[in-house]
């Protein structure tokens, strides 16, 4: 089953190399194809007069890094969510978290027009928490409790409600174009500033995720087991929720809604690695990064010179997978 469950450090290194290769491709390919040697020159012998060097340093590199980071964060958020809720459909985009974050951004666009990237991230985090609490509130209030299918349906409904409200706001205040960008999802035009913030905020949270991963493995076996083994279940859960909200919040604030990354990657990773969350989180991060970087390359290649929204591509990849899971899971519940 779990193909890569042996020699994990080796496979982790291999995945890392795959990621670096994908990022190199992402830097070279685009509206103007740039050779690898030019990329090397731009890094080590930067020439301000050369437009290619400028493009690489100011556009392509931040974009590739942001794509990798966001992919990693979303995949990790999904992994933690699926482990914590023991819900195979757990994914920030299905659970109303990403649309909550985007709703926060829509509001910020109107009432906080001068917001800095950091403030946007804060707002996005609050929005994510808002969306999540709505979905889980509905789940908790419902007869029969939080079944995976109910959570998914509540998430879909609340997402559509929040998207409707955001659209209403955006139409009224004439910012529909900008807000659409957030709902379509893209890492086009990412600034260095945002990359730095992604690293500064996401990095520590990522380490926190790795620290909690052992407890998460226990928690994923079920609450009773976890309590029986003497774990402070509540504490672990709170930390997990915090990690999920921060990771999805900052991702949305930079790249908008990229659906299904947090759904598809954990499932694939689990089938390859097994259920040890210490490795699962790490590998999910790597695979998520690779997936988003590749999807971003596809976004640029499909209809040049147009950019296809990255969110549409991740949906086209992840949607069929969701379909497959829906078919599988829907049968278990009833």
């Amino acid at each position, binding site marked *: 089953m779990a193909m890569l469950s042996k020699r994990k450090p080796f496979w982790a290194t291999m995945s890392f190399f795959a990621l670096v290769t994908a990022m190199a491709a992402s830097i070279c390919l685009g509206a103007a194809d740039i050779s690898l040697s030019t990329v090397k020159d731009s890094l080590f012998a930067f020439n301000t007069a050369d437009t290619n060097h400028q493009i690489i340093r100011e556009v392509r590199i931040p974009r590739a890094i942001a794509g990798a980071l966001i992919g990693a964060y979303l995949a990790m958020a999904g992994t933690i969510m699926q482990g914590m809720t023991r819900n195979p459909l757990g994914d920030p985009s299905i659970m109303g978290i990403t649309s909550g974050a985007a709703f926060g951004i829509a509001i910020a666009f109107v009432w906080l027009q001068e917001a800095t990237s950091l403030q946007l991230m804060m707002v996005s985090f609050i929005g994510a928490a808002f969306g999540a609490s709505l979905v889980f509130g509905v789940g908790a*209030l*419902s007869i*029969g409790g939080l079944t995976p299918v109910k959570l998914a349906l509540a998430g879909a409904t609340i997402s559509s409600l929040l998207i*409707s*409200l955001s659209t*209403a706001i955006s139409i009224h205040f004439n910012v529909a174009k900008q807000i659409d960008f957030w709902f379509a999802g893209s890492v086009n035009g990412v600034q260095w500033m945002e990359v730095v913030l992604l690293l500064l905020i996401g990095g520590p949270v990522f380490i926190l995720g790795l620290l909690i991963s052992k407890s998460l493995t226990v928690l994923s076996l079920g609450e009773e087991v976890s309590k029986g083994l003497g774990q402070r279940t509540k504490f672990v859960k709170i930390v997990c929720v915090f990690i999920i909200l921060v990771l999805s919040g900052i991702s949305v604030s930079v790249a908008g809604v990229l659906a299904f990354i947090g759904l598809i990657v954990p499932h694939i990773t689990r089938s390859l690695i097994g259920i040890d969350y210490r490795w699962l989180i790490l590998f999910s991060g790597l695979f998520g990064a690779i997936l988003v970087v590749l999807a971003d390359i596809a976004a640029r290649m499909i209809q040049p010179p147009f950019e296809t929204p990255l969110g549409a591509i991740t949906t*086209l990849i992840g949607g069929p997978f969701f379909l497959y899971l829906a078919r599988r899971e829907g049968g278990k519940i009833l």
Partner: protein
Amino acid sequence: MILFKKSPWILAGLLVILILAVFVASLNTGVIRLSPMNTFNALLGKGSSENELILFDFRMPRMVLSMCVGAGLAIAGAIFQSITRNDLAEPGLIGINAGAGVAVVLFIFLTGGVLEEVSGLSVFMLPLLAFLGAILTAGLIYLFAWKNGVTPLRLILVGVAMQAILSAVLIVLQLSMEDRDFNKALVWLMGSIYSANWGYVWSVLPWLLILIPFAIYKSRYLNILHVGDAAAMGLGINVERERKKLLIVAAALTGASVSAGGGIAFAGLVAPHVARRLVGPKHERFLPISALIGALLLLFADMIARTILMPSELPVGIVVSCIGAPYFLYLLMKSK
């Protein structure tokens, strides 16, 4: 409990009066205000030409169209809910609307047309295409949800996945359009009766006039299908055949409505539910009442959409979502 069980006619009368009241109120509201007197004169054919233009060419078609769309979606939703025996089967949520939308946008894209200038024959083509898109989507959902039978929740979950995929397809299609068309398509897909004209009304009306009576005529089968397959077979009904027929009717109604009004979610959920509460589950009674409630809902939502953020206009689908989504959540909480 069921308020008008004995007296559906009184309820129908009340609803018609309400519709008329909202209709008149809606005629009088808008960016350009007309006094009731002016409206009245124009209706009698004695108003100024400007007033007549506003009333007859802008507001009237739009209101008539919103009522058609509301009634169509309500009946379609009712049929979907009955044949799947699933209170949550909402055409908008499970991707039927998106399927119809993809077909329409694809058509506009391929013929290189502009959305607002769709005219002549194309107007009559649109409902047909939307119908094809809707029926294809419904078929796919059924196919994917089928695994030794179809459980209600799996059907919806598969639908939600379908909806996500089709929306992504729509985004990709939209992006290949000109900027101007892109915005138009966006507003249209959010559900809008924005650019209504009499052409649209004439293209949709025949579908409704044929299909709604047909659905009501099939009430007996719907009643039995709603009870359960076993009971229906016991009563000598060819379950699969009747279900397929009714599914086609529902998809056709959705297609016609979507081709005119765009993707309006949750109207097909709210109207049948309220109707069932008011007159009970017998389809003879509750289908016509659903149609009336659907028409009222859309007419009212369209008035809100036009006025709440004046002078900008909201897509009517947003207003309906804001009413319908909480109701869906409420039903979800109650379901086991």
